[in-house]
C-alpha cells in the first residue's frame, strides 16, 4: 500500500520519527479491511510526491500497531494526523479531497 515517497510507521518508530523530523509529518492511519482507506490512499501518495522534501508522509497500519491509534483516541479510519515539531497540529477524520488537504498542510510548511 505504501509508495516510494511514503514511509511506514510502527508503534516502535512513531515517537522518534515524529519528534526528530524537522519537516511536518503527515500520518495516514489505515487498515487492509477499510474501504475508504483504500480510496484515500492514492491521494496520500500524490501528496507525498507533491510535498517531497517539505513534508514527510507516512502510513501506519492500525491492525499491526494498536498503541499509537489508542494514544490519539482514534476510533475511526481513515484518519490523517499532521505533526509539526512533535506536536499534533491538524487532524482529518474520514475521506477528504486533495485540495482541502493541501490547504491544511500549507498552513504548516
Amino acid at each position: 500500500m505504501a509508495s516510494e515517497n511514503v514511509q511506514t510507521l510502527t508503534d516502535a518508530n512513531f515517537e522518534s520519527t515524529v519528534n526528530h523530523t524537522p519537516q511536518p509529518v503527515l500520518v495516514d492511519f489505515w487498515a487492509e479491511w477499510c474501504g475508504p482507506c483504500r480510496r484515500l490512499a492514492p491521494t496520500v501518495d500524490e501528496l507525498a510526491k507533491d510535498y517531497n522534501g517539505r513534508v514527510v508522509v507516512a502510513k501506519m497500519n492500525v491492525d499491526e500497531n494498536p498503541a499509537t491509534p489508542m494514544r490519539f483516541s482514534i476510533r475511526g479510519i481513515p484518519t490523517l494526523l499532521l505533526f509539526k515539531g512533535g506536536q499534533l497540529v491538524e487532524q482529518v477524520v474520514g475521506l477528504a479531497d486533495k485540495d482541502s488537504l493541501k490547504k491544511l498542510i500549507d498552513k504548516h510548511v
Partner: protein
Amino acid sequence: MASLRNVIIIGSGPAGLTAGLYAARANLKPLVIEGLEAGGQLMMTTLVENWPGHRNGVIGPELMAEIRAQAERFGAEILRGDVTDVDLSSHPFTIATSEERYTSRTLIVATGASARLLGLPSERTLMGHGVSTCATCDGYFFRGKPIAVVGGGDTAMEEAIFLTRFASHVTVVHRRDTLRASKIMQDKAFANAKIAFEWNTAIEEIKDTGKGEVTAAVLSNLKTGEQKELPVEGVFIAIGHTPNTSLFRGKLEMDANGYLITHDGTRTSVPGVFAAGDVQDHVYRQAITAAGSGCMAAIDAEKYLEGVPQHLGEAELHA
C-alpha cells in the same frame, strides 16, 4: 479546456458505473468522474446478499471493483476527482473539478446519498473518536466495548448485527416502537442475544466532548420525557440518508428533501441531464435498482444524442 464529450457521468456507485458500462458499450466514450466517495455506499458494506447472480452473496467493495473493471473494459474513462461546479444553463454543459473543466452534450447525475447525521454539536466533535456512520470501517475499534446504534431501518439492523462481532453489547436506539427494517433483518436482530432495544427514544447528547472520546449517550424517552445516561464507547448513526444534490440547487428540479425529480425514465428538468440511483430515489434505494436506473440513464442519454428524443421538441434539442 478538455475536448467536448458525449456523456459525463458524476458518481461511481452502482448507478454511475452501470451508466458508464452501457454508455461505453454504445460507443459514447463516457467520462465517469468518480467523486470523493468513489464506489458509493456499497464500499462501506461487507456481504451483499441480495445482488442477483451471487447465491452466496458478494462482498460490496469487490462487487464495485468488478463493475468498475467491466465498465473500463468497454472504454469508460474513470477519473479520480470531485466535481465542484456545474453549468447547465447552456449547451454544451460545463462540469468543473478542482483541476479541470469539461464540456459535455449530456450529463448523468449519479451522485447518490450520504449518511444523515443527528445534528448534535457533540456528534461532529466526536466523529472519528467514537461517533461513526460506518460500522464496517470503525467497528474494529470497539472490541469488547458497549456501543449504541441509532436508527430502525435495514442499515441500522445491519450495522447492529455486524457490530456484535466486536462489541460486548449493542443497544439500538430508535424513535418509534416498531422497526422500519425488513422482516428478515428484524428477525436477525431480535434473535441476536447481544442486541437490546431502547424504543421511543432519541439521543439528546453524546458525552464527553471535553475528553475527546465517547463515554455515554444521553437518552430521552419521547413518550415519558424521562432521561437517562447509557454508558457506551461508540455511537453508530444509521438514521437514513440525504441525497448529494447541493451542486444542483437552483439548477435541477428537486423535491422538498433534495432528491432530484425525474420524469419519463431518467429525465430531469433540464433536457440532456439525466439522473440515476439514490440521488433520485428515496423509495427503493437498492444496489440493483440503482444499477437498473443507471442503465436507463445511459439509454436515455444515447437516445437524446441520436436526436430522437421521445418527449422533446427539436428546438429544445438543438438549443
